């Protein structure tokens, strides 16, 4: 990959921080937009991806002396996960369609459509986050020692802010 990108004059960065230009300049625009739009969702502990990974993990735990997530709760979680995915999917598709159908010269100067998509995605994420909070309270209303969301990002599998290793630091 490195050799090919170098041969095509697209390799950037250094060995520890490799980067490259995409084959199509429109993809560079798409990429930058995607990072700005989905960074919190996908790569932070506050993000929905982290929370859903953890909650789905928790919902499938079959450990003794732990309250199980009920079938109704599991169905609800599956629905919320699906909605979250579909919204992200819709946002991404709209962006790809827009970029594909708009001349590069316009895209370079006019990002209003993409900014609107970002705002839409953020609004939806706020709504989903509220719903996740309601789900969490429903599952944990008895104050049971379920692990809570054990996820991934920021190298953590849990909301717990105590010991990092015990909380799953390094999990991927």
């Amino acid at each position, binding site marked *: *990959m490195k050799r*090919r*990108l170098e041969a095509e004059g697209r390799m950037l960065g250094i060995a*520890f*921080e*490799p*980067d*490259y230009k*995409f*084959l*199509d300049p*429109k*993809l560079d625009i*798409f*990429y930058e937009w*995607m*990072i700005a739009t989905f*960074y919190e969702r*996908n*790569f932070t502990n506050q993000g*929905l991806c982290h929370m*859903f*990974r953890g909650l*789905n*993990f928790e*919902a*499938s*735990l*079959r*450990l*003794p002396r*732990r309250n199980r997530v009920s079938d109704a709760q599991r169905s609800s979680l599956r629905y919320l*996960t*699906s909605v*979250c*995915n579909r919204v*992200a*999917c819709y946002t*991404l598709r709209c962006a*790809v369609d827009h*970029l*594909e159908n708009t001349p590069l010269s316009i895209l370079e100067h006019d990002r209003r459509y993409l900014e609107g998509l970002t705002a839409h995605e953020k609004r939806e994420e706020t709504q989903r986050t509220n719903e996740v909070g309601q789900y969490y309270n429903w599952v944990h209303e008895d104050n049971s*020692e*379920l*692990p809570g969301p*054990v996820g991934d*990002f920021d190298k953590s*599998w*849990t909301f*717990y802010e*105590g*010991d990092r*290793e*015990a*909380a*799953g*630091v*390094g*999990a*991927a």
Partner: protein
Amino acid sequence: MVAPLAKVVENLDILPRPDRRSIDYESHPMPTASVLGSRGCPWDCFFCGVRPFYESLGGPLRRLRSPREVADEMLELHVNRKVPIFLFQDDDFLAGGKNAKLWAIEIADLIAAAGFAGELAFKISCRSDEIDEEILRRLMAGGLTHVYMGVESGDEEGLINMNKRMKPESHLRAGRILKKLGLSFDFGFMMVDPFLHISQHSAKHIISGRVYRRWMDGSPVLPHAALRRHSGEAQTGGGGPDAGYCVRARL
């Protein structure tokens, strides 16, 4: 400053286990521990630095700790430190053909034979074409609860570009099995291919693809792009004397 590459330790069992004395598992309501059962990966996906890193060291592409050693480390943490959840950090827990599958099964069997079946849970990462119902059932008997798969692309061309050496049908089959078994799973895919124009781009194929549609309800989707530097999400792989730097940038 550039240090020489460390010498490969072929027998990982001679390495001491991680010193976890400073980790306060006991005060956590549901502590988790990260465990490595192996180092390396034999696959050569074009976006991944794991194989080039381990290849540069020489030695086998994937080295396995003995199942007994892995199981003992887990059981010791469970019995003495009350850890119920284990997160295997192996890049591909099932990589390496039949022997690797038997290795994984033996770990689960040892946990079950020690009387801890159902007492602990663990998570692995693997490829979708390594998902096998019978193997997973055996692993579940030892506590397998969650599977992460690097799916990367839902269309055949995208998988070829990434040198994944598999077809989308593997993803679909894996999803069916995982759902049937009631395992939680999640997956990542590469949104942007460095060698395609937007008009032929896998993003559209993935988004409209069968894989994504069928998995959408059970797993949060995690879009990646290959080897970009901006995210700060680069991971270091493994630990110990010969584990160094394998960059698997998420974006």
